[in-house]
């Protein structure tokens, strides 16, 4: 009874990942793809726990799931920072403001 429910939960998780995979395929911006990849990665960690329950080796698969969740988080943050840095760097201007202020202070 429990095994049947576990198989059902794993299959439902896999089927519900397909809309996220669709968003990865046809997402208009790259951030849409990144969000969907993040969702798929988190659900893969959950699916590893389901597979471990099904095989009866949950003590082994829990470590896999923990490592997978950690790697997913690090990869998501890295790609987010990479996409963020590409445009926000040339707009920094507070360094240029300091020199006129000093000149004004000296002139007055």
């Amino acid at each position: 009874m429990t095994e049947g429910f576990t198989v059902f939960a794993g299959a439902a998780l896999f089927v519900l990942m397909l809309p996220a995979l669709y968003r990865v395929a046809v997402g208009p911006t790259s951030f849409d793809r990144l969000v969907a990849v993040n969702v798929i990665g988190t659900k893969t960690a959950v699916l590893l726990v389901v597979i471990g329950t099904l095989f009866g080796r949950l003590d082994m698969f829990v470590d896999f799931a923990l490592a997978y969740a950690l790697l997913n988080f690090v990869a998501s943050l890295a790609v987010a920072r990479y996409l963020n840095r590409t445009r926000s760097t040339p707009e920094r201007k507070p360094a240029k403001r300091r020199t006129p202020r000093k000149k004004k202070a000296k002139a007055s």
Partner: protein
Amino acid sequence: MSMDVADSFVGGFSFDFGFLAEASAKTTHAGLSALDVCGMVMVSVGLVFFLGAAVGLYRFPDFYTRMHAAGKGDTLSSLLILLGFGLITLDDFSMVGWLLVVKLLAIVLFIMLTSPTSTHALMRAGYEDGVEPVTKGSSSKNTKKEVES
């Protein structure tokens, strides 16, 4: 099961939590204990939340709305499904079983910390990169379906 090998190291003694062991030993006519039923209910609720996240990720018109659905539904459904399988696994109250549940709780805590963090980082990256939100009356470029209206 594979618990026997690790149980031999720690001596295989089991805790005697009163009501939990009683709830685990008392099975219904289908062979399910009360903890199994609770775990199944939690996994089902988590699957419903993940259904909401998947439908939102598929149907919503905008990057920010998709991220809203994905972030919340994904976090809560992951927590519920993992805790439900922790309850299903917790049938014998041995040392290794508790260690397994503690590891599952570590994954739950990790996901609860990191999933909003990555959602926030992605949202900020998209905002600073100039992804336009969909507004009322104007069909944005980011919308999937360009409905002429």
